[in-house]
């Protein structure tokens, strides 16, 4: 096992945030991580959603948004920070983007390395432990 390949197929805030935490800490600890954001997972990364903090979520999401005394770094900030330090690549699913009619410009800057298809993801996942979220 030489790292993790994480599929993020959900826009649920808690799942997105958990993926970001695990991917960021692992990669900053020199464990290679590939994150493939697909299906509704992409929605959480749209500029509009991030700017307005408009996410689908439950109790943990609400607690994080309302926390006043502590600042929880948002998943976009975590991934951006981690990508600069460790072996972390984050990809947006090309198929889902085609269906949604979105372009890379629609997503927050500093997070995605590139767009990617299923074969590309499988190639990068070959030697890694796959985590599906």
């Amino acid at each position: 096992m030489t790292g993790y390949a994480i599929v993020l197929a959900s826009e649920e805030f808690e799942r997105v945030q958990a993926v970001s935490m695990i991917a960021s800490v692992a990669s900053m600890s020199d464990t290679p991580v590939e994150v493939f954001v697909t299906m509704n997972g992409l929605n959480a990364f749209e500029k509009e959603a991030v700017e307005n903090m408009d996410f689908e979520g439950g109790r943990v999401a609400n607690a994080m948004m309302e926390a006043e005394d502590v600042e929880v770094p948002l998943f976009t900030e975590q991934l951006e920070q981690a990508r600069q330090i460790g072996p972390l690549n984050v990809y947006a699913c090309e198929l889902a983007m085609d269906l949604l009619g979105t372009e890379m410009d629609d997503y927050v800057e500093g997070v995605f390395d590139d767009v990617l298809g299923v074969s590309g993801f499988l190639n990068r996942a070959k030697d890694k432990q796959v985590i599906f979220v």
Partner: protein
Amino acid sequence: MSDTIEADVTVDARGSACPGPLMDLIGKIKSVDEGAVVELLTGDEGSKNDVPEWVEEAGHELLDTVDEGDYYAIYVKKT
């Protein structure tokens, strides 16, 4: 005990929740020279417990964790 530890650099992550303090610490550890002592200040209970796990796995040395009342000072030596 804590009085004897001289930190070369301090990371003040008070007010930041998990995994902020850990990520700040990792970033700082990567930038300092071997043998340097990094002091991490955090009020986050989860980080207090999780940081030592990372330090051990990464092969650095946990010198001490000092309870400063409303926050902790965690001393890590880069090896």
